[in-house]
């Protein structure tokens, strides 16, 4: 394990966040803890199979599939998002998202202003505005992610703290 990774884990432990023993690189759902344990190495830009912007060519602010690491933060998008949704796959009605927000060096970003907006592109409408609660250092829970119709939805997360800001859009299919 590299020194930066050790330091990142130490910060999580010091913040009182437990690391899941069930995390593995093959986990279908990325959790903040899994990301750091499995190699969210800020120097390398993330593991090769995690769809990081460096490896997958995903631009900051682009749309990615649900459950995929939205990318390591970059100078153009200083805040990075790792998300999971419950239930997975999401269903009609209310769902809950967990968001791990980190800075350019992989450090969790606590105390950010995080907002979420839902949208159904094919119908041109959104749904009730979700509420966000910070539950740990850099870990936020988005409650009331409402998908009111069957079909494809997007959830756009926008975070800001001081001079740092970032936005990412996630796509979900409700069947």
């Amino acid at each position, binding site marked *: 394990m590299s020194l930066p990774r050790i330091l990142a884990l130490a910060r999580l432990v010091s913040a009182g966040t437990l690391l899941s023993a069930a995390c593995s690189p093959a986990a279908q759902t990325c959790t903040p803890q899994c990301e750091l344990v499995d190699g969210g190495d800020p120097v390398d830009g993330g593991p090769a199979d995690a769809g990081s912007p460096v490896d997958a060519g995903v631009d900051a602010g682009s749309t990615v599939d649900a459950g995929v690491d939205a990318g390591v933060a970059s100078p153009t998008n200083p805040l990075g998002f790792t998300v999971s949704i419950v239930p997975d796959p999401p*269903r*009609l*009605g*209310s769902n809950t998202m967990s968001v791990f927000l980190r800075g350019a060096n992989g450090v969790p970003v606590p105390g950010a202003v995080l907002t979420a*907006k*839902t*949208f159904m*592109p*094919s*119908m*041109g*409408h*959104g*749904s*009730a*505005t979700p509420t966000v609660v910070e539950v740990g250092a850099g870990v936020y829970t988005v409650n*009331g992610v*409402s998908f*009111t*119709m*069957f*079909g*494809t939805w997007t959830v*756009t997360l926008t975070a800001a703290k001081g001079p740092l800001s970032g936005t990412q859009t996630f796509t979900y299919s409700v069947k």
Partner: protein
Amino acid sequence: MMLRRLLPLVALASALAAAPAQAAACCLSANAFGIGRLAMWETLAVILGGSVSPVAGRWDQQATWRPNPAEFAETEWRTQLSALAAVHPRLQLSGRVPLVLTQKVFAEQQESGGGLGDTQFAVRYEPVFQGEYEFLPEVALNAGVTVPVGRTATDSQTALGSDVTSRGAWVPSASASVELARSNWFALLGGGVTWPLPMAGFEPGRTQQLGLGWQLTAAGGVEVKKALVLSLAARGAFEGPIQMDGAVVPESEAFEMGLGPAVAWTFVPHFTLQGGVDLELHASGLGDNRQGRTTASLALRYAYF
């Protein structure tokens, strides 16, 4: 008198002209054909009606029909108050105010909600009115607007969106129709367009515009008994793609069609009972990007003359 004999036919034609596009509040709230019309001897008409519309499924963005899963149910109940007034022998004004109630159930989630729906106002001009020329049909031109006074999806307070009653757009519309009435039968054909105006997008600073719409309607009926008219009406509506910040949203076009029988009975002078069923054919390719419904409606029309 021939004109009196035509009264039930006229009333039915008025009802049918208003039948198209009673679609879900979320999806298509603008009707290009206005709210109906008055007979030439009528000065004012008030219509109080209601409808129930259960959702059977949806057409996805590839026009594939997808029936609702067993654990999901949705029904829309609607009450509408409409009024028409003649301000000139060839000019009529009309307005309609709906109240919408939607019930949704999904697994353990149950909710209902609603409220005032988008209101509609229209003006109708008849360059050729019924019976003016022996061999010419009635020709009518309609111009209207849908006012988004209802609750949009973004303002919803419910998880399943049952309190949504509006798409949030101002929608001007225009249409033209031709109607021929003879002895105990009538036939009607109309076409119209809707132009949703740009509106605020789902994020601050963004704008979106719903797609341009085209609507067609055709109907025909016959008086089977004194003051009792049966008819059949068909409709089709197409909506172009949505634009977000000027860019077309892929696969956001929509199409729906329906047909069904209707009945009108002028049981006493001045009062007509109207009822009808709008059926959508729930099969792939017969709709696109819309919910599939069956709508039953009933209304009481009072005409002052």
